[in-house]
């Protein structure tokens, strides 16, 4: 650490004392960490100055770039605190800009869940329709009809989810889930066609 001349030492001490007052609304540990960060910053900045001993002018330049101590209280997120220093800061500074993270579209999630729902409901209807005996053709048809209805509904919800995500200006996400919900209908149709072909080919 570079040595300071008397005037540079006085300026630094005065600045850090004012900063301690400005940070009154912070907890002791936070204020101590900010103060330590500023001390380290001053040391690092002074290492870049010319000469072996820091002059008042050099110290003044470093402190000027750091900004007035009051600005430290203003730049923090004052809405999270209560206290006199905060109240003072809030009168002069507008609330900080808050970036709300996007949430996953519930429609997209519902759409993505359409395939497992269709399988479960279809199987349940088939079992109940058979009355505990070997599945009859009519029970299987009813189960497939229920499953297909759920899948078509899921694809519709997926399209609605995509439109809602597009209109949300970034507030909604889940495009992949919505597309998955629509694709599930296509997969189910392919599976049904394949199953029908195999069934028809059987002797």
């Amino acid at each position, binding site marked *: *650490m570079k040595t300071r001349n008397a005037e540079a030492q006085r300026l630094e001490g005065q600045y850090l004392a004012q900063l301690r007052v400005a*940070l009154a609304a*912070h907890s002791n540990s*936070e204020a101590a*960490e*900010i103060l*330590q*960060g*500023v001390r*380290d*910053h001053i*040391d*690092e*900045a002074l290492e870049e100055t010319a000469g072996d001993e820091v002059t008042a002018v050099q110290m003044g330049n470093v402190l000027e*770039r*750091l*900004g*007035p*101590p009051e*600005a*430290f*209280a203003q*730049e*923090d*997120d004052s809405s*999270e605190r209560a206290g006199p220093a905060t109240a003072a800061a809030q009168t*002069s*500074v*507008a*609330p*900080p*800009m*808050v*970036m*709300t*993270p*996007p949430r996953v579209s519930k429609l997209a999630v519902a759409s993505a869940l359409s395939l497992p729902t269709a399988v479960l409901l279809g199987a349940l209807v088939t079992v109940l329709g058979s009355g505990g005996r070997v599945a009859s053709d009519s029970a299987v048809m009813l189960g497939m009809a229920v499953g297909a209805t759920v899948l078509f509904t899921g694809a519709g919800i997926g399209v609605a989810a995509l439109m809602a995500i597009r209109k949300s*200006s*970034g*507030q909604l*996400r889940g495009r992949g889930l919505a597309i998955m919900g629509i694709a599930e209908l296509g997969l189910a149709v392919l599976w049904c066609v394949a199953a029908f072909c195999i069934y028809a080919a059987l002797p």
Partner: protein
Amino acid sequence: MDDDSKWLSQIRRGLLELCILNLLARQSMYGYQIVRRLESAPGLVITEGTIYPLLSRLKRQGLIASSLVESPLGPVRRTYVLTPAGKRHLRDINEVWRDIAGALNEFMVPAQQERKHSP
């Protein structure tokens, strides 16, 4: 503080948070290093000291963590890293920012056209 200054102050505060989290996503950094890196973006940092309360808040929110790191070439430095919660938060706000930036680019009047219409 006039309306223009308030607006700029709010924009800067939000963007500083975004920039710091993005910087720390690439590598751990100490305070002075973050300040120097941010100064390379014109208009973003007006007073260097304001970074430190912001780092303190991000730490309080659990988005970053700090530790003292010794170096054979320099002093002991408080180094900041992104936490797992910070990584998740960064992914979310980056997504928001990309959408906003894309939308803004559509609305902004080109600089050439702006100069033509100014008195």
